């Protein structure tokens, strides 16, 4: 039987936003009290490791531990300073011209999984989630960001250079 504290850790790891302990309790089929004490236990267990639990207004998040902020920041800056890979540029182009667009639709154009590329572009602030599609499962839609437009000196997307994709040559 896996420990409750670590079940919570696994859930906080995959969660996309801070989770309230009621939500956590529902996810692990436990009482709010048990969850609260397990979260405290988890905080202790994580002491000294690379990760930590932070609480804000009753909602919990898994983050990197404060002691590692310098090394994490250095890494992230060097990552975002690198040029975009060919694959990332392609993904960005598809989002610019076809967005708002779902991950699946991007993958249909590119023919390969694009999850990593999307995260990379999100991290660089070039794209952002822009609501959800009406398709089943309500997948997230992605669009280019304000920073993207600024970067290219565009005041809006209609200023993107046209694509003469219709000559099929």
């Amino acid at each position, binding site marked *: 039987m896996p420990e409750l504290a670590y079940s919570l850790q696994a859930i906080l790891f*995959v969660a996309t936003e801070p989770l309230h302990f009621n939500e956590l309790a529902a996810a692990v089929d436990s009482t709010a009290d048990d969850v609260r004490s397990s979260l405290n236990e988890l905080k202790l267990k994580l002491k000294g490791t690379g990760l930590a639990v932070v609480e804000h207004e009753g909602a919990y998040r898994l983050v990197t531990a404060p002691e590692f902020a310098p090394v994490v920041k250095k890494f992230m800056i060097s990552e975002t300073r690198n*040029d975009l890979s060919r694959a990332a540029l392609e993904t960005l182009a598809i989002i*610019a011209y076809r967005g708002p667009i779902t991950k699946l639709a991007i993958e*249909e154009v590119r023919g390969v999984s694009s999850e990593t590329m999307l995260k990379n572009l999100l991290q660089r602030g070039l794209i952002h989630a822009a609501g959800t599609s009406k398709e089943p499962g309500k997948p997230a839609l992605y669009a280019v960001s304000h920073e993207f437009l600024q*970067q290219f000196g565009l005041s809006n997307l209609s200023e993107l250079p046209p694509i003469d994709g219709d000559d099929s040559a």
Partner: protein
Amino acid sequence: MTVSVAVESFEGPLGLLLELVEGGQMEVTSISITMLTQAYLDRIRRLNSHNPEELSEFLQLGCRLIHIKSLALLPQAGSDEQAEELNQLNIELEEYRHYQLAAATLARNSQHRTWQRQSVTKLDVSELPMPNIELGKLQEAFARAVRRAEPISPRGNIPAHLSQAEVTKRITDRLKSGSFELETLLIETKLRIAIIVTFLALLELIKSHAVRVVQQTQFDPIVIEAVNA
């Protein structure tokens, strides 16, 4: 003895043969090859597939089975060859079976799948170095991705092109309202094949003395005129 195995769907010819072999407790030997071939052919007859490619894959193995079966009818040499073919088929089936088992194990494993993080940690916008990309590169990348997404299929339909007759008609129609510069004709089309067709049509018209091509001095525009104009 009748072979009766209830199968919902076959994944492929080897999968079907394997099911017949295992379900009917037969072996791929000279003794049971006739029975196996019959059972296999019966099943592909009932195979409800409208996909000719898929059907051809099943037929391919069917032909192979018939061939192996027929080898026994030949005197002497045939039975050696049959033994060899049967041996080869057994090896292939055995290899296929290994992967089928491995796939089943993998499927069980997927109950213990793992997940990566779903959210993204971001630096403050002020700390985010923006990458250096030109708009042209972005445009190029989009064109590249779209082109790759719709590859020109070697088996697809050949796109309709202008025929020489059409171009000839276009030229003669235009000549009705006087002569014109060659360039205006070529400007309409960017496709190489269309340019070639245009030149062919023009050469044909010159040969039949319907048009004349005139250039006053070098580098002057080339003008097309009707001969009887």
